[in-house]
């Protein structure tokens, strides 16, 4: 396998700004789908949406946790080191950002950094590549940033996601925040969002 250095943003400033705005809007309007900037020349070894979030959010101050499928690929590790300088950590609770290419690779949410009472922001933001942002079981969201309610149906969530999420909510203001990516888009679930099954 070749070293994989290609795939960074072509126009770093503009593309990172645009992707950041998309992620910001995704978290400010939970459950909506925002268009991410995608780097055209990303290889198949790490999804283009994950790359976009990675390049936008991480730098040498933000330890990154990679799911095993990504962490075991030396090309992916080199790519991250070259483009972001982010240190890679093996323990989820030391990560500022976590990236996973499928739900099965994700440890329980409670194993990540959950912040402290005084500094709840010192928690992990998890970016999970799902199969699609629609087509899965219907869920209803309520909470800050949502007028009344919003329906989402991402496909490819962890098995016991609703149980894990309500456990995450119970920790408020501590807890993790989630970004789902698929199909060139991002959907945000900040920790204050309530999720119920069905419509």
């Amino acid at each position: 396998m070749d070293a994989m250095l290609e795939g960074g943003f072509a126009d770093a400033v503009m593309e990172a700004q645009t992707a950041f705005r998309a992620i910001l809007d995704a978290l400010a309007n939970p459950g909506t789908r925002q268009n991410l900037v995608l780097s055209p020349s990303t290889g198949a070894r790490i999804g283009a949406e994950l790359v976009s979030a990675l390049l936008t959010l991480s730098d040498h101050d933000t330890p990154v946790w990679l799911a095993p499928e990504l962490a075991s690929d030396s090309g992916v590790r080199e790519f991250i080191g070259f483009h972001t300088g982010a240190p890679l950590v093996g323990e989820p609770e030391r990560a500022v950002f976590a990236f996973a290419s499928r739900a099965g690779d994700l440890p329980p949410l409670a194993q990540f950094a959950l912040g402290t009472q005084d500094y709840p922001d010192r928690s992990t933001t998890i970016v999970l590549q799902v199969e699609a942002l629609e087509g899965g079981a219907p869920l209803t969201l309520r909470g800050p940033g949502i007028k009344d309610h919003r329906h989402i149906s991402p496909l490819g969530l962890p098995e016991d996601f609703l149980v894990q999420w309500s456990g995450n909510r119970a920790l408020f203001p501590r807890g993790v925040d989630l970004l789902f990516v698929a199909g060139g888009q991002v959907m945000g679930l900040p920790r204050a969002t309530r999720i119920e099954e069905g419509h």
Partner: protein
Amino acid sequence: MQMAPSYDPQRRKRVLDVLASAPAKALAERWDAFGSCPDHTPIRRPETGLVMVRGRAGGGGAPFNLGEASVSRASVRIATGEVGHGYCLGRDTAKAEAIAVIDALWQREPERVESEIVDPLEALAQAADRKRRDQSAATKVDFFTMVRGDN
């Protein structure tokens, strides 16, 4: 993972040192004279950023922040696959990109790159340094202090 071809890191460091400190005009002249500029694709487009320059001070050598310096850098992959990196002080992104291409070329034909680009630039730098030292030496004044009695 592709195995990096073995090269002497000290030798590569010397090449990059000379290229980085060469005046932009002299580097451009040598690069144009070299001729065969290979096709290359950007891995990191030329960009300028700030680097915190650190120094050490005092007997204990404690590190301190000296100040920020503008640094330009670029990384390219040439058609034959080698990846070159260029770094230089200042905001000359074209110079950083040229250095990156030359670095990649050096990995493929080190002797030619060294004899046609690096060695002449190094000679130029040494000549300029010698000239500066000679000019400074010409201004040197030796002082003699006469031993004086009290009062």
